């Protein structure tokens, strides 16, 4: 049993470039393991998921992109505001063809530009619909993972009631917004924040956690991404940082390993160790700030050769081992 039993909508946010898309993909794989069906959706028209799963560009149709260990399946979807709007116009206003004709005038772009909140409702609305969709007598998807906008915009994105408060007070959009709001503020949703152990991403994580809590949106885990192996024992770090490692011992070690054992080599290794120790100290400070947030923390290793589908399995495993599923 993982930490998020009962959660049906997993939202993944974080500062730009920290690994939201990667973590969303890995989490979907982890959740699907053991025969479940999971949808992962992106909302920023970037085709990040197609790249991640190494499949052709996604459209507004859900497509199977990977199989998880134990027979699970991961589906992916690129939610697009224009398509979502057409779906809307057709469904609620019977404006099928006319809706498309409006596009010639740049209607959807215009409407979502003057009312950015409309765009958010359309995007989250689609995710909401997928969470609730049923096939026969069960949910079509056991869970939905949303690769969401970055930290700075995520609360506005999720808090759709506020977004639509300036829009029509009645009508289907408003009803929809209310249902989305119910889901987003319920224990069936968890918003996970991805960070690196660096100043700005951690700061943004702390801000996002505070903002989410203030908006009564359930915060999930903090995922510390791209963690590098420690190598140097903790007790050696202070000396390493000051450049005071045992010169003779390193010389002897190099000799024992049959490597060039010169003072210059030792000096270089010592300098590199000092850098490493300084970085580690900085990361430790940042990690303490992350721990202070009081959320479950998962660490994902930095994959040296970059992310490919194999690496995704590895990251999914790491999440599972730490109790994410």
């Amino acid at each position, binding site marked *: 049993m993982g930490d998020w039993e009962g959660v049906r909508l997993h939202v993944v946010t974080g500062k730009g470039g920290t690994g939201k898309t990667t973590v969303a993909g890995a989490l979907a794989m982890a959740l699907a393991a053991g025969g479940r069906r999971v949808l992962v959706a992106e909302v920023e028209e970037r085709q990040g998921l197609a790249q991640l799963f190494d499949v052709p560009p996604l459209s507004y149709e859900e497509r199977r992109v990977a199989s998880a260990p134990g027979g699970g399946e991961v589906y992916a979807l690129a939610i697009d505001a224009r398509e979502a709007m057409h779906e809307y116009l057709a469904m609620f206003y019977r404006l099928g063809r006319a809706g498309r004709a409006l596009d010639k005038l740049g209607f959807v772009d215009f409407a979502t530009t003057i009312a*950015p909140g409309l765009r958010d409702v359309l995007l989250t609305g689609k995710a909401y619909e997928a969470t609730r969709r049923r096939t026969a007598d069960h949910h079509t998807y056991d869970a939905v993972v949303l690769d969401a906008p970055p930290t700075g915009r995520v609360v506005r994105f999720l808090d759709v009631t506020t977004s639509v408060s300036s829009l029509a007070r009645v009508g289907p959009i408003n009803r929809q917004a209310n249902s989305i709001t119910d889901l987003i503020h319920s224990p069936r949703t968890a918003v996970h924040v991805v960070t690196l152990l660096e100043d700005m991403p951690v700061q943004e994580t702390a801000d996002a956690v505070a903002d989410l809590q203030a908006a009564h949106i359930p915060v999930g885990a903090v995922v510390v991404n791209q963690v590098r192996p420690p190598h140097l024992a903790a007790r050696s770090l202070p000396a390493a940082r000051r450049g005071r490692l045992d010169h003779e011992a390193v010389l002897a070690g190099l000799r024992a390993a049959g490597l060039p054992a010169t003072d210059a080599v030792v000096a270089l290794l010592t300098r590199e160790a000092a850098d490493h120790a300084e970085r580690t100290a900085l990361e430790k400070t940042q990690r303490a700030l992350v721990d202070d947030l009081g959320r479950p923390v998962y660490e994902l290793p930095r994959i040296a050769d970059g992310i490919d589908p194999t690496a995704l399995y590895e990251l999914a495993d790491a999440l599972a081992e730490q109790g994410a599923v």
Partner: protein
Amino acid sequence: MNPGPRAARPPHFDVDRLIDDRRIRIVVTCGSGGVGKTTTAAAIALRAAERGRKAVVLTIDPARRLAQSMGLSELDNTPRAVKGVDGEAGGSLDAMMLDMKRTFDEVVEEHTTPERARQIRANPFYQALSSSFAGTQEYMAMEKLGQLRARPDWDLIVVDTPPSRSALDFLDAPERLGSFLDGRLIRLLGGTARAGGRTYLKVLHAGFNVVTSTLTKILGGELLKDVSTFVNALDTMFGGFRERAEQTYALLKRPETAFIVVAAPEHDALREASYFVDRLSRDAMPLAGLLLNRVHASGAAGIGAEQAVAAAERLESASDEDHVLTAALLRLHADRLKLATRDERIGERFSTTHPDVPVTRIPALAGDVHDLDGLRQIGALFDAG
């Protein structure tokens, strides 16, 4: 594996020569998110000031600690002198942090009567537009640059660009916002359409009824009313928006401007850098060079990565406590070499497709950069890259 043609070393990007060149009046740092635009903009401005220029840096969303160390905690949207700058060479440094809402207000105030300006500021649509619209930040950064350039106080303006996925946004967003404010649909809403040919008018009006009725259904009458009041209040300024954006754009094409593209040694960042470089050349905008930031380097110990790992494994399996430290150092060295090789290769790939773009590499510092000393340290590395 076929190593392919060996990339020629790109020309060196001499940042010091650039900032010492008095003909250069504007330096813009561009690049995709998180690569170091703000840091390098501040470092360049500080170095220029300490080499004798009267510099001002326009930062956008700087990291909190960096902002504090530059005295930027006060958000009054005008440049303030930075304390702790060495003025020996006759230079000085002012810094400011962009407040986009305030800058927008200033534009409005400058172009209309106080009474109208008040109306506009009170309009809910304007409030959303000026504080949270995509593109507003870019537009206002350009606007502020134009304002700073019009003042005689500085001989060098260093401009940071907003955090954005795509570096191109800085060039495109103002135009996009301009054409939106100037666009057909919004003018129709304001009832101020001055459309061209008659057939066009007819088609547009037929479509327009559907547009307004659908918009009203979806967005509600109130928002549309706000938009239309806003449009009418702003009508006299409309031409102004485009024109201003165009003027600053023209400023960016002048030889007094130098674009510096910042990238981290990551595929995504360098792809963005490529797009941006190509765009600058297409638009005949002056590119000074590429700053490849946070590059990992390793000194030559004469020990290869594989060799280091193999040796570390040997030392570890001998389970000799004495050599634990050496084994760890060798593993660190191997990691670092791998990173360095990877960074090198990614950088080379850029230079293969853009052989004429001058490049300077800035090493990844162990700590982050959050005070003047850190900025100085980065500045000193411009030379070594």
